[in-house]
């Protein structure tokens, strides 16, 4: 009986702690939403943070989307991510395939060589990339941006895909070769379908990190028409620094796509990431 009481007490304590923490966690989002609903006039009238305005300022959202160029920023980000993510995964999968299943020398050495890139700070490549890009006229281009993104994603992608591919039994290769598959057919029709879960996880984490990247984009892009969301948001802050309602509406719009992706594919993060690490 006592044990059971203790169990109930423990469970209640757990819920209370988690609920309190969740309350603290939600503060930034709560602040963002209630502020986005207020117009500039509301702030002058001295409305409290926790009060709702009489008229919800939908204009904030419309202005942010059009005059604030958020539509352009989101379009650009979608194009860059749309190229970076599939191409990056293809390149990484090819390399991981070679590193796990093909007859090449120094596999571990090459793998470690690729791995180092994961820890290098982007800053170390920033100035040369800027110099080379300005010579090749690649500044302010989609290609310029997604090319460096692929480069900086390679290490992590190879790490994950190699881990998964290593787990596939070698018997499959033998069987496929006996059936007359060559290396490319084997890659496309045998290995890729098996590592689909890993590709799905990569697809989503890659999309988010590309969508959210700021440092490289801030150096490669300075034309307003080509900016991605994070760089655009900083421009947005520079232009409307004190109009917090408008600003928060912009941020809210900018993070809605990732919220949707997250809600739909949540299991790929929490379960997928854990699985990827274990392998």
């Amino acid at each position: 009986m006592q044990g059971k009481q203790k169990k109930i007490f423990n469970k209640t304590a757990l819920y209370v702690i988690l609920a309190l923490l969740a309350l603290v966690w939600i503060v930034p989002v709560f602040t963002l939403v209630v502020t986005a609903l207020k117009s500039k006039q509301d702030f002058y009238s001295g409305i409290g943070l926790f009060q709702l305005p009489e008229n919800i300022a939908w204009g904030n959202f419309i202005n942010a989307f059009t005059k604030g160029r958020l539509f352009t920023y989101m379009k650009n980000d979608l194009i860059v991510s749309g190229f970076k993510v599939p191409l990056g995964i293809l390149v990484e999968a090819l390399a991981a395939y070679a590193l796990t299943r093909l007859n090449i020398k120094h596999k571990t050495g090459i793998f470690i060589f690729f791995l180092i890139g994961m820890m290098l700070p982007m800053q170390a490549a920033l100035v040369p990339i800027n110099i080379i890009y300005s010579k090749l006229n690649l500044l302010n281009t989609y290609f310029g941006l997604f090319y460096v993104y692929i480069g900086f994603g390679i290490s992590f992608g190879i790490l994950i895909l190699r881990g998964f591919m290593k787990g596939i039994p070698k018997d499959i290769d033998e069987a496929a070769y006996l059936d007359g598959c060559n290396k490319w057919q084997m890659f496309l029709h045998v290995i890729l379908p098996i590592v689909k879960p890993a590709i799905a996880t990569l697809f989503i984490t890659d999309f988010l990190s590309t969508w959210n990247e700021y440092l490289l984009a801030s150096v490669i892009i300075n034309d307003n028409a080509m900016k991605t969301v994070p760089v655009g948001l900083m421009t947005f802050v520079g232009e409307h620094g004190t109009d917090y309602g408008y600003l928060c509406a912009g941020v809210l719009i900018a993070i809605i796509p990732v919220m949707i992706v997250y809600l739909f594919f949540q299991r790929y993060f929490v379960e997928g990431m854990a699985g990827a690490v274990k392998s």
Partner: protein
Amino acid sequence: MKKRVKTNIGSYIFLMPALIIYLSVIVFPVFYSLYISLFKWNGIGDMEFVGLNNYINLFVSDPIFITALKNNIIWIVLTLVVTMTIALALAVMLNKQFKGRTFFRGFFYFPCVIAPIAVSIIWRWIYNPSVGFINEFASLLGLDFSQSWLSDPKVSIYAVFVAALWQAVGQPMILFLAGLQGVSTEVLEAAVIDGANGRKKFFKITIPLMKETFVIVIATLIVAAMKVFDVVQGLTGGGPNNATQMLSTYMYSQTFTYNNVGIGTAISCIMVIIMMLVIVPYVSFTAKDD
């Protein structure tokens, strides 16, 4: 014999795209940075060879660089103590069996998916000294204070850290959850039979069994702490009066604001060297099972 050589070359073709992109985006630029760091250069005019002077000057006569270095170390300590503890505590709670577990896991992880730049804009507003959330909340409770969080050099770095913490805690939490799931329940049950209580079980058995997870978490947290940029840049840009300057932000402003490209690249090379000190043991640990 001949056939074998041919198949080998065919195998290397699979590696080529990744290798070419990796060499051109990362390897070559890093060495190029190293080269530039030996010059005094404004990015446009002639380059003047100065040897290691950029490095020496940074350490000997640049107090802002020293502040930045210190701040990175403070940041590492804060992440290892605060972020890691909270992440572990959350992971332990969310590893228990209860209704709503999946929801809470997803809930605490979700700030990780928001762009750090967006996070910094949100927190700027929370820290607003006159009408921000914290000071408004205090006045709601009847407390009369208005602290300026980001413009006070004494507290600004901690204020920035809290914003970063909110965003970053989900990642190590997931890693810890994965580690906890790897701890076999049989071992834990055996410990209970042997008379271990909850706390003892956790510190004497669970934690030692998660050694690998700890290595991964610590390494990734240190690397992330060395790299931290977006949140700081978005919240303070290194200010007030360089109080939140990090190596990354200082490199950025030296290079792109003040056009001291030689000094900027020297800072980035110092970042690489510090990272290497962390990476080499980590990589050898990761590759050990090969």
